[in-house]
């Protein structure tokens, strides 16, 4: 897996609300330091001042109450905690108050074991962009509508540089939004444990200039902006779209989750391979477990195209 993600942009406050979250974090940090030291400093001081050698038995005093002090150490921390609750609330408000869809770009996110897919609304030509990485224009509200296939598990779309995260739940559509003022490439990590390749489930958010985005969005390119379009066979497109590469390598012999498909045509005939896609548990290769791969209910023509791609590379 190409883990060339670098946590880029963590300190640049790329998303508009990142500074609100950080402000809340640092207010919390300093209040915590004050509260923590209000316990720990007296503890060290008393342990030193009333150390065994220093105290005569007759000087010990049983102080058991001090109303003023007790009220103080109840009310002052309570007030401080209410300040923290407030900042927790306000920083949530900026994260969770969605902008109007009419003033935003809506992108549909699908998380499945173990890849991300971004699907855009149709452009003027009726063309629908689909991409692994997310491409968005600078200075624009982006709303992510996220879900996972019904037979999949929970994931979470976590963008550390933006300080945002929300679970991606099968059978539900969850939302989050952002507005980035800085160009750049930002990591997306899966933060809800989802199995074997949970820690490989990365993608990226590319914030690009508006003009570049517009040009790409209104075009019919099947790859991201600035990338050179490579002619893909229908089978290869299906292979990418269905996230097959998340579990099966095809260019190398590496076993990811399922077996490698390199040279699979020499080992199995087309009927076996079709069954392996539509009803994977029918004949599980040795060393692999039934139930790991979900059945893929695709039209026959698509299954044929996939098998062609697997056996011939086209």
């Amino acid at each position: 897996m190409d883990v060339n993600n670098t946590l880029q942009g963590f300190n640049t406050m790329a998303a508009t609300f990142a500074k609100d979250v950080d402000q809340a974090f640092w207010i919390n940090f300093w209040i915590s330091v004050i509260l923590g030291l209000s316990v720990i400093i007296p503890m060290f001081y008393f342990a030193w001042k009333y150390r065994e050698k220093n105290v005569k038995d007759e000087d010990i005093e049983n102080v058991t109450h001090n109303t003023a002090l007790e009220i103080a150490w109840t009310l002052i921390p309570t007030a401080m905690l209410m300040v923290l609750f407030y900042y927790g609330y306000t920083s949530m408000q900026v994260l969770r108050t969605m902008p109007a869809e009419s003033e935003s770009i809506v992108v549909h996110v699908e998380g499945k074991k173990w890849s991300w897919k971004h699907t855009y609304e149709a452009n003027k030509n009726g063309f629908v962009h689909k991409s692994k990485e997310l491409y968005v224009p600078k200075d624009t509200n982006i709303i992510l509508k996220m879900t996972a296939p019904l037979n999949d598990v929970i994931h979470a779309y976590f963008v550390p540089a933006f300080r945002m995260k929300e679970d991606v739940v099968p059978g539900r559509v969850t939302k989050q939004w952002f507005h980035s003022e800085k160009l750049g490439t930002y990591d997306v990590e899966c933060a809800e444990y989802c199995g074997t390749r949970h820690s490989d489930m990365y993608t990226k958010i590319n914030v690009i200039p508006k003009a570049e985005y517009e040009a790409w969005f209104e075009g019919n390119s099947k790859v991201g902006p600035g990338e050179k379009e490579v002619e893909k066979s229908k089978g290869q497109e299906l292979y990418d779209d269905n996230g097959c590469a998340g579990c099966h390598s095809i260019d190398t012999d590496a076993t990811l989750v399922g077996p490698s498909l390199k040279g699979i045509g020499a080992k199995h005939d087309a009927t076996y391979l079709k069954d392996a896609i539509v009803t994977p548990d029918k004949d599980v290769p040795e060393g692999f477990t039934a139930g790991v791969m979900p059945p893929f209910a695709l039209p026959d023509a698509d299954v044929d195209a996939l098998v062609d791609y697997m056996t011939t590379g086209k």
Partner: protein
Amino acid sequence: MSKSYFDETHTAIGHPKSTFMQWMLTVDHKRIGLMYAAVMFTFFFVAVATAFLMRLELFAPGAQFIDGDTFNQAFTLHGVIMIFLFIVPGVPAVLGNIVMPLMIGAKDVSFPRLNWFTFWLYILGCIVALASLFTDAGFADTGWTFYAPYSLTTSTNVIFTLVAAFILGMASILTGLNFLVTIHRLRAPGMTFFKMPLFVWGIYATAWIQLLATPVVGITLILAILEKYFGIGIFDPAKGGDPVLFEHLFWIYSHPAVYLMILPAFGIMSEIIPTFSRREIFGYRTIALSSASIAGIGYLVWGHHLYTSGMADTAKVIFSFLTFFVAIPTGIKFYDWVATMYKGKIILSTPMLWALGTIITFTIGGLTGVTIAMIGVDIHLQDTYYTVAHFHYAMLGGVVFLFFAGLHYWFPLVSGKMYNETHAKIAFYLQFVGFNLLWFPMFIAGYYGMPRRYFDYLPEFQIYHQVSFFGAVIFITGLIYMFVVFFKGWRNGKPSGTNPWNATTLEWHMPSSPPPLENHSKVPYVDFNPYEYHHGEPVVKFDYETMKRID
């Protein structure tokens, strides 16, 4: 020499001659507590070894010597053992069993046979929990939280672990019930609730949580089993269920469970601080009532585990607000403990060192919990190493550290002998330093976005993982050192006498050391407060034959 509980015992069935069978069938609360300790700490070391395996794997990015699936099973095994087999039964099963009846002047718990049965139910639970290690499908890889639908679809053996959690939950309920009845019915005459030692208060508050919250996890697990084997759609969206419902039900139990772990540990702190300050505790009633209020509010805050689950924003605000109210009684306890040291005479014996060390580590663990009670901040920190560091500071640096403090404190009571204090202190310092080195870097890694349960990570995080690793080495060295000190103390330690710490509570007023089978010679009349000192000496003195006051 008078006979101690090591020499004779009551048994559940018959009158076995062999020492081994006498232990297996014993109904004596002290022996049962010791057996819990032996089993629990064996598992504890298995879970520590599993954790060390993970740290070794995480020393560098990429795969070192285990694969992702094994890693996932490793953190599940670590979590399941530490939570269900170790820390949930934890302090109540060991120290609650051994010390609580002594503290209230009882001869045993109310239902000694039930106590015996509960222990074996616990053993059954342990066996079922770990049996799947030896099945074909292998140990669960779901994490100890068993989130649906992953737990319903994984090919590993989840069902054994779920059934085990159910059995262990039953054992927990029965322990809680037994302790509740014991505390209500068997207190020595004169001992009103506000004359009980604070450890008993901690056990009492915990027992209510065990009794009332644990059934929820039982219900949840039964629903999961119905779903998996009978196809009823409850949590699995493919069958029309809702996975977030599982998260709610799971945390309705598992959040109060956190307080079930910490409250008896706080009780240990409340015993140790006055004893080694040689004076009466500050704010007795506040500490007692704050335990009760933590137990109460603890039921209403589970939603703070679900800030990023897709739950309604209004619900998040309510849960966040309530969560801050758990922090307040907890904070008050800490001020009370520190105030107890004021104008006392601080004796830095090993139990006191552990207690004071915990004031530092739990303060960090508690306050970083406040960070993630703040909704907006938690949205960033949820499911990162920050959260992992927080709960290890609170659970290991809070519950387990205080458990260790308690083990050092009551070791002479249980064994009649004293360990080597110098070596015990070295073990404390090793663990304290190792602990902080192990977990503090994770706060930073988590803040920068290192997600938890990651087998592989970005190279940027390597430095934090490596510092953690060296911390783990120091910590585990100290841990082993500590158990060697205990072991040597048990074998060759000097006789401790009945009250080596000059403590005041009833468990230190035994006719002999170690205590006899049925504890105090006579039931004492309690017309005094638990921590009465005058000029650094315990006020209340007994004639241990008649248990009449002679002061």
